[in-house]
């Protein structure tokens, strides 16, 4: 199987996700970029699982999918909270505190 | 060598009694001011009485060996032990610290500075006392460091809360300067611990155990300690915290600062830095001597530029500590004896001068020299005492100050083997010039403040002369200045054995 290609795909998706988190202004898009990063990890895990002929990679991926769902739920709730208060989900407007 | 049984704990008693007093006072509401003063005085006097017992039981024939040794486990996991002991070198400093605190408490009886709160003020004084007493008797580096640092906080609060208008700046500067030095010092201690033959913080073993440290490394380690102790002394160019701290501190704070705190640094040099790393000390000595004479001249010139009496005395401290450091930098028994004497003398005399400055400030609400005058007319006793203390400070023979300065200068004529003689003789000449300057600024100050008629500003004001509490607090200082001045051997005979031991260590390492 094309192990290297899958790993490269994973790396590419991960980088896209990182770029998305850093560059996107819309909070939902930021959330989706994070999902992209997590799924890039999943691809990696599956590939490595196949490489080592072990099931643990797939098990790990399942865990990540489940946890990511919980994380998204919380994330969307927080975004909703902000949207309700200011009718905008532009992350650049979150500038009360300058970190 | 080990003192027997109960005697050994006398030192710990003297160290921790003030702390005990402070703990008791914490439980008492602050409205009970008189009770607080009583407890504070009682606990510091109790410590002094323990000190008198030590004085009585001290074996003066063996002043060079440690006595009243207590060696108990403390923080085993880092090899730090509770080692407390005294020898002829510690004894005078220890007693000085024990005497000064109760006198300061007596002085504070009706002089609690703004904004009052006798409880907190006295508790801090007592904690300070524990820290100072402990530093002079600790023989474990970590224990020493802890006591050394414990001193810092109460003094910080004394200046920061009860100080003059610039107190915030002054207290912060004091704290940060000293902390910086301590930070490097503790690193040096750790390096010593790991690099010496036996992993120990025991100051009794370290001089031998550290002998194997590579000389370049030793110079760095000494450098760390130099920062720690040198800032505390303070040596030029680290002295800048001192005038600010002195000027802003409440009277009692200034007195303790001058009388005891500055000595923690010089004591550290003689007790720790030099015996443990004698070779590095010899490398550093010419530079220490140089900074010392710069300090002497700079302090003296600084004095001439001051318009504030307290600030002037503070600068004179820089100069006086310069003599002490010059004595130490010769690395000879003669020089170090002079240094120890200078430490005690400076403690008594400058402490006294700060007391007077505090009382003048209280009466005139200013210390501007140009606004004062005619002290001898309006408050003759205060004026005479100021005159006496100034004479002692400029090193008049027959008073204590002379025996600190003169032998230190003399010692620079013949420094320890291996030190550059020419350089030290140059230092000697410069230091001697410094005494002339000292006479100049002290007489100038005395003349401006005390001679003549009181200025118009104060012509109609009734100036009280020395009060009861002032008399009680000051008499021991005045007596001691005379006694040590007339009979210096009283002190030299105690310190000599211990100092000779240290000078021998140096001679052995540089000679062989």
């Amino acid at each position, binding site marked *: 199987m094309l192990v290297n290609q899958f790993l490269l795909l994973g790396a590419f998706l991960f980088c896209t996700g*990182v770029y998305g988190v850093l560059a996107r202004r819309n909070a939902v898009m930021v959330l989706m970029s994070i999902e992209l990063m997590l799924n890039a990890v999943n691809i990696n895990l599956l590939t490595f699982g196949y490489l080592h002929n072990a099931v643990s990679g797939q098990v790990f991926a399942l865990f990540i999918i489940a946890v990511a769902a919980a994380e998204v739920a919380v994330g969307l709730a927080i975004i909703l909270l902000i949207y309700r208060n200011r009718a905008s989900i532009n992350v650049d407007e979150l500038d009360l505190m300058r970190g | 060598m080990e003192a027997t049984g109960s005697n050994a704990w006398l030192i710990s008693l003297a160290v921790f009694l003030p702390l005990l007093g402070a703990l008791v006072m914490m439980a008492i509401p602050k409205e009970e001011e008189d009770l607080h003063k009583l407890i504070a005085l009682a606990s510091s006097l109790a410590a002094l009485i323990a000190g008198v017992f030590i004085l009585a039981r001290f074996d003066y024939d063996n002043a060079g060996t440690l006595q009243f040794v207590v060696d108990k486990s403390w923080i085993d996991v*880092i090899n730090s032990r509770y080692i407390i002991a005294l020898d002829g070198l510690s004894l005078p400093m220890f007693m000085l610290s024990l005497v000064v605190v109760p006198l300061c408490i007596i002085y504070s009886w009706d002089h609690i500075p703004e904004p009052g709160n006798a409880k907190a003020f006295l508790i801090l004084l007592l904690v300070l006392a524990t820290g100072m007493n402990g530093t002079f008797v600790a023989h474990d580096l970590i224990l020493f460091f802890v006591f050394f640092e414990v001193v810092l906080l109460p003094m910080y609060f004394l200046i920061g809360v009860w100080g003059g208008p610039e107190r915030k700046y002054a207290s912060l500067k004091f704290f940060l300067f000293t902390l910086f030095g301590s930070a490097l010092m503790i690193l040096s201690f750790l390096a010593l611990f*790991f690099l010496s033959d036996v992993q120990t913080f025991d100051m009794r073993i370290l001089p031998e155990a550290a002998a194997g440290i590579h000389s370049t490394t030793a110079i760095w380690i000494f450098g760390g300690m130099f920062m720690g102790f040198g800032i505390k002394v303070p040596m030029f160019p680290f002295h800048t915290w001192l005038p600010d701290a002195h000027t802003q501190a409440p009277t009692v704070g200034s007195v303790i600062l001058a009388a005891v705190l500055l000595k923690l640094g010089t004591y550290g040099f003689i007790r720790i830095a030099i015996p443990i790393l004698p070779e590095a000390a010899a490398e550093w000595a010419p530079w220490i001597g140089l900074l010392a004479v710069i300090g002497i001249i700079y302090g003296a010139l600084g004095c001439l530029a001051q318009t504030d009496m307290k600030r002037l005395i503070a600068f004179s401290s820089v100069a006086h500590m310069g003599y002490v450091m010059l004595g130490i930098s010769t690395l000879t028994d003669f020089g170090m004896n002079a240094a120890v004497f200078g430490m005690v003398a400076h403690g008594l005399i400058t402490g006294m001068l700060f007391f007077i400055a505090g009382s003048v400030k209280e009466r005139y609400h200013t210390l501007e020299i140009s606004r004062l005058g005619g002290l001898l007319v309006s408050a003759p006793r205060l004026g005479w005492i100021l005159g006496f203390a100034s004479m002692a400070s400029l090193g008049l023979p027959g008073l204590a100050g002379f025996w600190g300065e003169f032998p230190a200068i003399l010692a620079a004529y013949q420094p320890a083997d291996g030190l550059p003689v020419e350089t030290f003789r140059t230092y000697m000449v410069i230091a001697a010039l410094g005494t002339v300057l000292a006479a100049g600024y002290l007489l100038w100050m005395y003349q401006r403040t005390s001679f003549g008629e009181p200025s118009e500003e104060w012509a109609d004001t009734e100036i009280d002369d020395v009060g009861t509490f002032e008399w009680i607090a000051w008499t021991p200082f005045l007596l001691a200045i005379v006694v040590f001045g007339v009979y210096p051997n009283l002190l030299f005979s105690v310190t000599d054995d211990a100092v000779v031991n240290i000078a021998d260590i140096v001679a052995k390492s540089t000679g062989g």
Partner: protein
Amino acid sequence: MFAQLTQFESPPVDFFSLTPLFILVGGAVVIMLVTSLSPRPIPGWFSTAVSVAASAGAAVVAMVLWNDVRESGPYSTVSDAIGIDGFSLFFTVLVSLGVIATALVGDAYVRREHIAAPEFHALLLTAATGAIVMASANDLVVMFIGLESLSIGLYILAAMQFRRPHGREAAMKYFVLGAFSSAFLLYGIALVYGTTGSTSLIVIRERTSSLGAMVSPSELLIVGIALLLVGFAFKVAAAPFHFWAPDVYEGSGSPVSGFMASVAKAAAFAGLLRVVVVALGANEGDWAVPLAVLSAISIIVGAVMAITQNDVKRMLAFSSVGHAGYILVGVQAATAEGMSSALFYLFAYTFMVIGSFAVVSVIGWDNGHPIERYEGLAKRRPWLAGAFTVFLLAQAGVPMTAGFVAKFLVIKSAVAEEIYWLAILAMVASVITAFMYLRIVMAMWARDADVDDAPRLAVAPATAFVVAAAVAITLVYGIIPDSLIEFTRDAVPALVAGN
């Protein structure tokens, strides 16, 4: 390849060893069930009481287990996924104490700020469970699950202050950066898994330490380690990955900030120590220097940024970055002594910081926490000011406090490894940070502050208890640190297989 699935047998589970986890989760379940099923409103103290009782129970069981481990040695359970060793039990105790303190401080806080008490305490308990799982994990999957339970709990806890714009903003920032850093960590985990072929830390250690079986390609392992470091650096708030910390600490409720700065940081350090320092110990050459650099940057950033702040909570946040740097000094030494010094530091810091944030929560929010609001605190509440002074001085590393011993031990471990530059840097920076702590102290004890018309500060008994206990711990372990040092020495992670 899926043959093993058909023969699946559930692994033997030593339930007693997992009791602390069950107790904590059980507490959370009880709180949620009782308060939602009860026909009458349940008073707020009920949730507090359950959380305190559950954490106390967990701590007690951990101490019992600790005795077993000391007698019969560390072991693993659930098919080697959970390790029961001094390390995990140390963190169980630490986290439980942290929860007790936070719950008690939170009690008055949730009432004052009208935050739902049952949710607050239930989330606290689940987050704490996650923290303990992280510290006990012998498997990367378990570690990840622990991390996420901790993080998700904290995201919601941060969002509980949602009535203030600052609170909402903090929650959003914390969530985005938390998830972002989790992804980095996961990517690192995936690469480590890929190169070693196992998610079990025990196996990873075996395979990386025996050079012969060293997996190819090792470059991937290095990248994996680097990503792990980035992920953990985010979690412990080490510079330059700290930028979320000040905003999040500032915007979240003070008890929550205290919890993040203590328990969450401790859990992240536990993960770092277990995964990087122990399991990947053979690759010390790959991570020791980067950790030392992270440590140095954190110390510098923490010191320099802290002194420029004017908001007490932000000062504490930056100082927390600095403290992460100091703990890293012990971690990067990569010796048993270094690790135990890091553990001591974490323990001491937990109480200093929870105590500090407890005081901050008493002072309360009024358009931030400007330092001016602390002026004259000594006149209004002398004991509170005194306690805060102790916490601040302890953080500055003044002797006679646990903070000094902690700094001393980490510096000692660096000097022992002859990493002098870091030791000197750390000590010099500690002087700079002292300036910031002293500014707060000075403000509190300012004698000319006008406090006559200031509102009276209400200090709830539970909060007062926490503050007093934290002061006591800080001072006691500052003067006689022996017992705690020995505890931390026995608490170095073991990573052993089987029962």
